[in-house]
């Protein structure tokens, strides 16, 4: 019988700890499928963050390092500089990447560090129980913005792809979502393009994935998907923000 679908080899057959309806599982699968399709599991090293995906090292079949909070791009830099022929990716949430790790994110991007960043943006700190994230929307209620995010007090959300696209070291920056089958397919294509850019030595690549957090948003998974479409997508438009995957970032003054 022909196999029409199976678990990617790069994703291990273990139960995950993610909440029901959480889209981390979908994103893990996409990354693993890309690793399979590019045939790079044996020379790929993942760097996982502090946040809900802190234990992602248990799910990916490639080698993996658990980084201090926000430092994944620095750890990835060390791994990549040590063995440049390896494929190194980070998998980070919004608090990790755009709050505590902003400096590491910006500087690895501007160095054109030849790594791939998978940035899962669900607008909230999930693991600690739903506090305001740097990407929490204005007015959004979280445990630490009980009256909604007041931009007079807490400032504005960061649009990461837009910000990073101003830097000369960025080869590829795209924002995708995993709210529907067509968008999931686009997300996978973006992830594959980002990994491919790295393999070809083009420079820093990032795929921002709009994701849900039904548990901490206080919705059912289906409601959460709709909330993402209605609220996150207008604020964080999907699309390609930088594409230098042809020419690369070297001598890109």
């Amino acid at each position, binding site marked *: 019988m022909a196999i029409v679908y199976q678990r990617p080899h790069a994703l291990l057959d273990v139960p995950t700890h993610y909440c029901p309806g959480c889209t981390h599982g979908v994103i893990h699968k996409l990354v693993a499928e890309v690793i399979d399709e590019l045939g790079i599991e044996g020379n790929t090293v993942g760097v996982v963050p502090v946040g809900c995906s802190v234990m992602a090292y248990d799910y990916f079949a490639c080698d993996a390092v658990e980084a*201090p909070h926000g430092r994944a791009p620095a750890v990835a830099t060390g791994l990549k500089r040590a063995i440049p022929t390896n494929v190194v990716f980070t998998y980070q949430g919004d608090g990790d990447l755009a709050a505590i790790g902003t400096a590491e994110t910006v500087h690895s991007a501007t160095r054109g560090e030849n790594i791939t960043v998978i940035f899962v943006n669900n607008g909230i700190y999930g693991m600690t129980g739903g506090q305001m994230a740097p990407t929490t929307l204005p007015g959004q209620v979280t445990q630490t913005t009980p009256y909604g995010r007041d931009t007079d007090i807490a400032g504005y959300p960061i649009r990461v792809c837009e910000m990073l696209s101003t830097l000369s070291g960025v080869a590829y920056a795209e924002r995708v979502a995993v709210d529907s089958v067509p968008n999931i397919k686009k997300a996978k294509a973006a992830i594959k393009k980002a990994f491919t850019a790295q393999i070809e030595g083009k420079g820093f690549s990032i795929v921002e994935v709009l994701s849900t957090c039904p548990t901490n948003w206080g919705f059912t998974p289906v409601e959460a998907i709709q909330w993402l479409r209605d609220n996150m997508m207008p604020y964080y438009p999907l699309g390609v923000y930088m594409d230098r995957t042809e020419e690369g970032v070297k001598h890109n003054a």
Partner: protein
Amino acid sequence: MASNQKVLMKGNEALAEAAIQAGCHHFFGYPITPQTEVAAYMSKRMPKIGGTYLQAESEVAAINMVLGAASAGVRAMTSSSSPGISLKSEGISYIAGSDLPCLIINVQRGGPGLGGIQPSQSDYWQATRAPGHGDLHILVFAPSTIQEMVDMVFDAFENADRYRMPAMILADGMLGQMMEPVVFPEKKVVTFDKESWATNGHKNQRPHNIVNSLYLQATELERKVKERFERYEVIKAKEARAEEYLVDDAELVVVAYGATSRIARSAINSARAKGVKVGLIRPQTLWPYPSAVIAKAAQTAKAFLTVEMSMGQMVDDVRLAVNGKAPVSFFGHTGGVIPTPAEVLSEIEKLTGGDR
């Protein structure tokens, strides 16, 4: 650089050259006085040997780049001075908790806070007690000459690899900035097989390796930490080092490390010339601490004097080692003020009742 030839080198540059010769081809740094020559030297040499010199965006990033490179199984290092080491303490804790080897250099300056830029030894507690959060130790080497800085870099890398833990060279602004003649020995670099744990890509030939310090099950974390502490016991038994100078008949034993041990030695020579029976114990490792050497001296010596460029930090360890068998007093300067041999001599004379 040709080996076996005596050259005049700054401590900071000698540290860097020694690291390269010890097989470290990955350096991640950030400028801070008085250690910047380490980074400058690396930036000159690394491109010529195909190594990595990277100026990080912060001390925090630099130590985490070391974490990444060490995970990949290569010899990696960073260097800084006191305020920068505080920033690195997060990474040091993670590196220790992930059982990774690396080298950290601290060319100490006065603190706390931004403090000053002159030589100091006031990071002793930080290095030996709390280099980061959690139950952990790092290997701490305390050179007192430029030659010893070179030799200890080799030892530090080797023992870091052997015991899979961070090692620190605890120097100070005086040692970092001064020049002395130094010989780079034809040392055989001892290498270790890291395939069982390094995240260097499994090449479809082994299960995936994971570098990690997270253990959510309390019992599992306890087991992991206890395992590490069993290793620490082995290290304490085997790796503590101290130099003894005129201790055998000494009634007063001065304990000092690094730059202050040099000053103490001058004072001891002057005191001996006057007939005062005084000797020196110079710890070469600060963790593990050479307590046994001091305990042995405490069987015969009548008193101890600890000299430091701090308000008195190592003196705690001397008191623990002496264990009440003799009085232990302290003399020091802090904030970047360097004690003079004359001051130490006068302290020795005070404690021994002057000329005999």
